[in-house]
């Protein structure tokens, strides 16, 4: 009895120690974001005076609102477009019988696994031809033609919906589109939510895409590109960089807390069931 109590304490001490290690970087970032720029350059970790106005300064010193707007435009449109194109495709792959469906799914897996850098140069040239390099559209418009990872994830979700419900609707005379819209969509809401959140996070966090297309046109920069622009003569104003870092992290963490359950279910499905 006594021994198991000791084991329990030891186990929880390990857990708490690991939790502290995971949380500490967030703590340092948050504390630094309230410092003066001079103190941020020292090895202090507790602010000697608190400067919440840093969070205002990041908006006045650089066009942060514009970067925020660009990031939101990219994330929201890319997520909406992805849903429009990928939900029907996932439905056809999970719930319709047709020759070549496995082969198509294999191609989609290959597309999902393809390092984006492989096709970067030809795609860049293609968008340059239509004059859209220097904007975020080369990242948003392709979402109208399906996103491989989202199709994959949605298909895994749709496979878990029993065929009986769909057959019942078909017997009642529903066409496949009606089956999708009236029966499958309401049932797959958690899966669709998880996929949408993934897409939103991916685009919100994306760096390679915006760097490739907008690095030379600052008016289209996203937050990822703008994060570390705070410089005073020769030294970096770490307090402001950290304030901007908090600003970028906050929405992701807030969305996560609201949609935790769907989100964790989604992460689990990106693995393979043993």
């Amino acid at each position, binding site marked *: 009895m006594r021994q198991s109590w000791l084991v329990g304490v030891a186990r929880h001490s390990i857990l708490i120690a690991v939790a502290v290690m995971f949380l500490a970087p967030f703590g340092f970032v948050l504390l630094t974001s309230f410092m003066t720029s001079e103190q941020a350059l020292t090895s202090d970790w507790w602010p000697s005076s608190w400067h919440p106005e840093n969070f205002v300064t990041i908006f006045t010193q650089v066009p942060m609102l514009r970067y925020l707007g660009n990031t939101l435009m990219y994330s929201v449109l890319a997520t909406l477009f992805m849903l429009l194109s990928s939900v029907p495709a996932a439905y056809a792959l999970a719930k319709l019988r047709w020759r070549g469906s496995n082969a198509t799914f294999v191609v989609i897996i290959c597309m999902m696994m393809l390092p984006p850098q492989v096709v970067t140069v030809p795609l860049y040239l293609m968008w340059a031809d239509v004059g859209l390099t220097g904007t975020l559209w080369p990242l948003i418009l392709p979402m109208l033609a399906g996103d491989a990872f989202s199709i994959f994830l949605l298909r895994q979700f749709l496979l878990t919906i029993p065929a009986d419900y769909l057959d019942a609707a078909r017997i009642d005379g529903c066409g496949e589109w009606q089956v999708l819209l009236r029966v499958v969509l309401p049932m797959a809401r958690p899966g669709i939510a998880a996929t949408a959140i993934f897409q939103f996070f991916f685009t919100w966090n994306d760096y390679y895409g915006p760097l490739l297309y907008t690095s030379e046109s600052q008016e289209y920069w996203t937050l990822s590109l703008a994060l570390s622009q705070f410089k005073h003569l020769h030294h970096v104003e770490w307090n402001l960089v950290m304030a901007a870092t908090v600003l970028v*992290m906050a929405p992701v963490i807030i969305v996560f807390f609201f949609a935790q359950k769907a989100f964790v279910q989604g992460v689990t499905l990106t693995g393979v069931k043993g």
Partner: protein
Amino acid sequence: MAATIAGVTRPAVPSRGVPHRRRADRRRWRHRLTVLSFLAPALIGISVFLIYPLLSAIYFSFTRFDLLTAPVWVGLRNYEHLFGSDQTAWKAAANTLWLVAFLVPARMLAALATAMLLTTVKRGGSVFRIIFYLPALAPPVAATIAFVFLFNPATGPVNELLAVFGVDGPLWFDSPEWAKPSLVLLGTWAVGDLMVIFLAGLLDVPKPLYEAASIDGASSWQKFRFITLPSISPVLMFAGITGVIQTLQFFTQAAVAASVASGKATTGGGISSTFGYPDQALLTYPMHLYVSGFRFYDMGYANALAVMLFLVAFAVTLVLLRRFRVFVTGGERG
């Protein structure tokens, strides 16, 4: 059957079977059109954003092309340069392979350890699960900037803490030896996504197996070795292979770390001038590709690098598809 092939023995008077078959034909065509209506956007996506650029990359890889003048066919010259004289390409490939060899196992070990730790708690498990998961949510650019700041050799809290224990901390992101291990620490910190997958796998292992083993007097290690590991090995395998593919694309963290640590501290335009800092230690293969294409405008050569990256990534994908065939065909249709 013969009737439809030769058209000679077709009976003059339509038999009762034909309108039936015609109706079946029509239904089949309707079904095909329905499927197509669902898939049309994705099929366009596959042709425009996968097939076309792949073929195009292969073609450009045999040309010299600087964007200003038309591509000139040069045969294998780009590949000769890649395999013969481009030291930087080899350095970059070695860096990427180093990350594959150390980052992937480190992340898997950390994910397995934290997931197993979580299975042992009875109360408060969900709170710890959220805390362990949080770093995986941090945007990579933000997380990398934060890590470079925390691991700053002179003023960062990490070396400060090490000094308390009498350890003289390394230069981390500023040292050619420690820069890649620093990135491994960053990747291990953000291990939550993998941990959640492993946790689900661990919770799927049937409890009676452990109970039976306990009755037989098995030690914890034996239970882990002979029950846990075999049960979750498909999950581990899948995570390992996808981890390798992700690491082949490793770009953002290395680019941002080099830029911030070098003191240039820009994540926007001009970042590629710091790629590789310190001493090419953080130059990954995709970064070398990016520099060749978009800094030196050597599009032909960049595409030769791309084709090699494709071949490696595709080979790994094939391993995945072969090993997890069930994963593709499995599941119920309705």
